[in-house]
């Protein structure tokens, strides 16, 4: 192992787009649409650290993990394994100068996307999954499950040596007494014990890099900590680097050195765990922290100040900052557009109409994404409502560039949206106000 290679993994401009499954004719007319599960993210994991990727469902965190191991092929971007600052600088420079030849050469040497590199590292990078029951072969005993990868990768020279290694590893992960556990099948084990088998199965290959995707999410509360503790113990003992993927900010806080917070395929904030928790910058991070339920009824009445709504459908990504529709600190700059106005009207239908008019409470609209405008066909209640509302000082209303009323059509045009970028060196958060 090269001691100077202190960057374990550099994820550079990683993108993973899934084509939506659509009717072929629609595809012909509209072109193929994509779900941007991971949309241009970059981060590095330093050697020996635990890096947490935190996000809600649909944030793309799991997709990142799968892309690292090439379980899925990235759409774009590179993954450089075991490099240092110099190599990183070289790559950036070559990219700046457009030196394709050099980039190819460097990729060949360092990128996980090159099959040859990946094959060499198959043992070195291991993964632990969320659902321990699904990840085990039901017809293999504990002993066989752990032995199997060792056999494939030819760990140990003799049969006896391999057997001893399996026993040692079982002891290491706490499947003791070995005699009691070795001939059991997955169905005879508890969730925690199964997860231990999976950890042993990964660790027997003596990896240096572990991708742990929600390793305790399916386990009972009373034993989660014990599995986490085991992971931390193994990390120390074997000098592991860990990518810890989780939805649980509190767990990440406890075990990660640095964390990246993902939302809809982007990293919204990244930094040292301590700094992020002491002084969160991104409004999304702040909201997440407030939302975590506290196991203390005395804190029930705390100011939670929750964001509205849910993660939007990634096929129809909000423009500008993708968090703006839910953001509590958003201003008119953040990328408001026709869909936001549409939603606003929908949510206020009961206010706009009188209760008796429930039956006809609909409105005809046309959303024009390209020109960033919304056309509403004459509904005088809605027009009146907007006339009044427009004067209010809300980010959505302030983002309106112009309104046009002609005959039976009200057209509302918005300012052109921009997306905030997270510059690694300057700011931690991808937000206009940091």
């Amino acid at each position, binding site marked *: 192992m090269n001691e100077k290679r202190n960057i374990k993994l550099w994820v550079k401009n990683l993108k993973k787009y899934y084509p939506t499954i*659509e*009717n*072929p*004719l*629609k595809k012909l007319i509209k072109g193929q649409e994509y779900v941007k599960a991971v949309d241009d993210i970059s981060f590095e994991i330093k050697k020996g650290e635990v890096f947490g990727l935190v996000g809600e469902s649909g944030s793309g965190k799991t997709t990142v993990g799968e892309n690292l191991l090439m379980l899925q092929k990235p759409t774009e971007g590179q993954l450089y394994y075991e490099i240092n600052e110099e190599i990183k600088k070289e790559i950036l420079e070559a990219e700046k100068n457009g030196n394709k030849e050099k980039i190819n050469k460097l990729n060949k040497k360092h990128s996980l996307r090159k099959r040859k590199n990946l094959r060499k590292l198959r043992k070195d990078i291991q993964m632990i999954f969320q659902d321990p029951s699904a990840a085990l072969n039901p017809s293999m005993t504990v002993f066989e499950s752990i032995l199997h990868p060792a056999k494939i990768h030819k760990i140990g020279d003799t049969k006896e040596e391999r057997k001893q290694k399996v026993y040692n590893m079982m002891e290491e992960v706490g499947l003791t007494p070995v005699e009691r556990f070795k001939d059991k099948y997955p169905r005879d084990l508890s969730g925690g014990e199964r997860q231990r088998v999976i950890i042993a199965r990964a660790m027997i290959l003596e990896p240096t890099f572990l991708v742990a995707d929600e390793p305790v999410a399916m386990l009972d509360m009373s034993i989660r900590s014990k599995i986490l503790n085991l992971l931390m113990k193994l990390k120390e003992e074997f000098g592991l680097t860990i990518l810890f993927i989780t939805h649980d900010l509190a767990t990440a806080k406890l075990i990660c050195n640095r964390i990246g917070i993902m939302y809809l395929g982007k990293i919204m904030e990244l930094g040292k765990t301590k700094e992020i928790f002491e002084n969160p910058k991104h409004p999304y991070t702040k909201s997440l922290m407030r939302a975590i339920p506290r196991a203390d009824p005395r804190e029930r009445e705390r100011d939670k100040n929750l964001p509205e709504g849910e993660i939007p459908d990634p096929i129809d990504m909000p423009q500008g900052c993708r968090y703006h529709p839910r953001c509590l600190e958003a201003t008119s700059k953040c990328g408001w557009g026709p869909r936001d106005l549409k939603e606003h009207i929908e949510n206020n239908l009961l206010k706009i109409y009188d209760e008796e008019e429930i039956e006809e409470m*609909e409105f*005809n609209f046309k959303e024009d994404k390209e020109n960033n405008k919304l056309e509403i066909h004459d509904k005088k209640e809605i027009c009146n409502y907007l006339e009044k509302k427009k004067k209010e000082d809300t980010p959505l209303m302030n983002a309106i560039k112009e309104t046009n009323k002609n005959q039976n059509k009200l057209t509302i045009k918005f300012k052109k949206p921009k997306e905030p970028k997270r510059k690694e060196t300057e700011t931690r958060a991808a937000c206009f106000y940091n």
Partner: protein
Amino acid sequence: MAEGRGLASYILTRLILAVPTVLILLTIVFLIMRVAPGDPAQAMLGAKAPPSQLELLREHMGLNKPLYMQYIDYIFGVVQGDLGKSFQFNTPMWELIKPRLMATLELVLYGFTLAVGLGVLLGKESAKREGSWGDFLGDLYGIAIYAFPIFWVGIMAQLIFGIELGWLPTSGRFGAMAPPQTITGLYTIDSLLQGQIDKFIVAIKHLILPATVLGVYISGIFTRITRTNMLQTLKEDYIEAAEARGIKEKLVVNRYALKNALLPLITIMGLQFALTLAGAVLTEVTFNWPGMADFIVSMAIERDYPAVQATVTVFAILVASVSVLIDIVIGVLDPRIRF
């Protein structure tokens, strides 16, 4: 509002997409018929036919034109409803095929309806009683029916109900009486449309045995598929949720489980329809039914190439139309696949 638009655009695209499908099918039919080795004219006239006659026949059939011209002629013919002329009878093919096609369709229609009805009923009841003796019998039925050769079942039915008991006619479509005037070509429908109950009864009597044999035969697969899908659907979370809301069991089974389980069944029905046509051919031979089977065999023996080609073309278009129809039905039933 958006609802109707989604359905309409779905149906429209399905119909538009049917065009290339049919075109591809027709091309395959053309290729098999024309590009296959051997000279159709030679085959029709025999090996010893004089060259001048051969030439004449080729010209008559358009075989002397370049291949792409023949292809264009064929496609344009089909589009205009012209399937060519029979070599033997020198009449337009459609006139020859239509009554026979209608005879086959009448058989298939009744057989298929019976198969679906029987299959869904048995499958549903089986699934409701999972693990019981009734379920076991339903399951056994599904397998056993498949194990008997269809013509053997047909002959047995003829022996028992036709000859031994003398209840039903064993062959033909209408016996000696003059059939009803043609409106649709389906005797049962035509006789009813004209108010001729006596003729309707004759038509039905002739239909019962062949349609039942065909229907029972194919119902096996529907029983099994309905049962499997029902069992799966009955375990869905929304079934439990409906029960927890106090919805009556009958409603839960019919409105929730059956309707949801029918969706995959309908897809299978589209595929099964083509197989039913094949099954109908065997049934027709057994019951001496004047349908497509009899026709295609005699045309093949007479080496009437245009007739064989026309028959295959009709079958191809039929199967393609059924699959479009099935897609549309599913689109109507399942809101998730609209756009």
